[in-house]
């Protein structure tokens, strides 16, 4: 078994096992027919309703589901990369949720309160979101490097601080949109059209520039981590801080840079949500994207390519999950598949041992007896 297979196979097997377990769960609570139909609907919902398309020729039946899957995948990809980059530096970033929240808030503020042409407005909003996420993450990095406080505890705390301050105060208080026309809405004011990410397929789909941006960012992260000296030093610091320090690497600096980058990536995810689909800070993010990022990163083995594939796959399942509701199967089902996948991935060593045993057994039978 090659090195590449050793790193990919446990994830593939884990996802397959999770799909199997969840199929059985639906089959037990409903019946096997519903379970099969639910998985089919999930695929239609994520990859397009091909039967409807072949019947009616309506392109929208393909582009709409695919667009939803791409939007979900873009958010998962960025939060997944956030967790993965931190992981490469030996840090566990549980704070992607809080960093994303601040990114979303800043993107909404820049989008709503500044007037600029699109070519400047969108980059400025993205930059503000990335910076906000980075600052939030750097608090945890500073506490780790200066006071030795484990980042797991600080990032969890910072998540709660962000949720409390933004969702329970700013978004419903000082920053709440001015009431107009008698009905009040929660969340901040709507952003200017100049800050909205352009839709790529017009009315055919909600697919917007954010998806391409996320893919581009994944490519840049891959280049940064694996093709630059700084990226090498970050990975070296993560593999063994003492050895890296002995080799003359500024470990603390690289650690802080990685955490800042992680926060910036999560912040960008918030920007994509606001500039691409919500067009305001919606009062609460609505889903634990940051926690999803942990699963996406680990299932993708913390490698940019793996994280991209993992985000695309779960983006499709997520978008398809809403369609399963037609059958009365709860839409949180893709999350269960995701959670179980992570659980099985956590047992990576179990998989590797099982696989090695089989190989060892088959190898030993080939040894000719003297």
């Amino acid at each position: 078994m090659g090195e590449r297979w050793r790193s990919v196979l446990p994830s593939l097997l884990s996802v397959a096992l999770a799909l199997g377990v969840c199929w059985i769960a639906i089959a037990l609570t409903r019946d096997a027919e519903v379970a099969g139909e639910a998985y089919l609907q999930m695929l239609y919902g994520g990859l397009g309703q091909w039967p409807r398309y072949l019947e009616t020729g309506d392109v929208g039946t393909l582009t709409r589901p695919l667009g939803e899957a791409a939007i979900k995948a873009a958010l998962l990809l960025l939060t997944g990369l956030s967790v993965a980059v931190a992981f490469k530096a030996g840090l566990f970033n549980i704070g992607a949720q809080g960093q994303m929240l601040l990114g979303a808030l800043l993107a909404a503020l820049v989008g709503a309160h500044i007037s600029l042409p699109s070519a400047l407005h969108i980059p400025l909003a993205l930059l503000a979101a990335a910076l906000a996420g980075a600052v939030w993450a750097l608090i945890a990095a500073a506490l780790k490097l200066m006071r030795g406080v484990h980042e797991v505890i600080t990032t969890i705390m910072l998540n709660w601080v962000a949720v409390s301050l933004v969702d329970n105060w700013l978004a419903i208080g000082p920053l709440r949109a001015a009431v107009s026309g008698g009905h009040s809405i929660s969340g901040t004011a709507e952003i200017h059209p100049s800050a909205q990410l352009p839709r790529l397929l017009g009315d055919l789909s909600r697919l917007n520039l954010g998806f391409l941006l996320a893919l581009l960012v994944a490519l840049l992260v891959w280049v940064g981590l694996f093709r630059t000296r700084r990226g090498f030093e970050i990975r070296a610091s993560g593999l063994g801080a003492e050895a890296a320090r002995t080799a003359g690497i500024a470990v603390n600096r690289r650690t802080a840079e990685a955490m800042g980058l992680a926060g910036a990536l999560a912040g960008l995810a918030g920007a994509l949500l606001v500039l691409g689909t919500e067009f305001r800070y919606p009062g609460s993010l609505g889903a634990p994207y940051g926690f999803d990022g942990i699963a996406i990163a680990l299932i993708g083995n913390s490698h940019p390519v793996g994280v991209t594939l993992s985000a695309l796959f779960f983006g499709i399942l997520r978008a398809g999950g809403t369609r399963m509701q037609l059958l009365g199967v709860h839409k949180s089902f893709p999350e269960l598949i995701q959670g179980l996948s992570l659980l099985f991935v956590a047992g990576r060593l179990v998989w590797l041992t099982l696989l090695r045993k089989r190989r060892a057994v088959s190898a030993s039978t080939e040894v000719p007896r003297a």
Partner: protein
Amino acid sequence: MLELLEALLFSTLDAAPALIFAALGGVLSERAGVVNVGLEGQMRVGAFCAAVAALSMPTPLAVGVGMLAGAGLAMVHGYLSIRWRSDQVVSGMAINLVALAGGTFLLEALYSPNGTPPIQQLPRWELPGLGAVPVLRALSNHPGLTYLALALPFVFHALLHHTPAGLRLRAVGEKPHAVATLGLSVAGLRWGAVLGGGMLAGLGGAVLSTAVLDRFEQHTPAGLGFMALAAVVFGRWTPLGAFAAAAFFSFGNALRIGLASSAPGLLDVIPQGFLLALPYLLTLLLLTIQGQRSSAPAALGTPYEQESR
């Protein structure tokens, strides 16, 4: 004024036990060197199973079912992190995600999206002689588990610091190799701590669904498990410290709710969200001041491998 104090004390005592049990579970597991980020998931499973069990058996018995359920989920954590030396934080987060999504699915499939049907709450104990005393009256009329939650931290302190078993447990979190040299089983001690921690977290969850509420709701335990984790760190990995932190968090929460209802004007000056953030900000502040290096168990988070030194 006295009435406000009494109400605050009462609601603190009502809400604190869940947090105290879970935090003690965290202390137990982490003192033995196993990080337990999965407290939230263990609480959720405990709360769900206790509520479901209480539909068909006496509630006190159902609480036991909740404890076993918490231990069951902890067993997955133990299997991955002790037996297979997986990353303990990853395994903990994984059981959180599974408990969250799995609980949602089962709740929907078996009952309704919002919660289980109502159940018989745990009986509340009337303490004799306290009924007429102002303020102290708040100590009466709680379920028996509340009084257990007030006593257990002291029992744990005694066990952990004054018995051979407690010494071994702490040693396994500090220097597992030394414990192995003495011929004791590192894995065995850690298994005991992780399962015990899971039982306590399950108990914390069960309190929520059988005493604080009278059902399991979709959002139970709503982040209390993470708060318990904060109480463990805030309390510097000691039973009494975690107890104090859990009581402090619960009091802060009771104060926030009490202020919101009794002095609405105050919320114009201090925003609600800021009060919500306060316990977490204080935890961060305290960690900034004292640092963490000194108090965490030395082998926390490191899988035990016999070959390594």
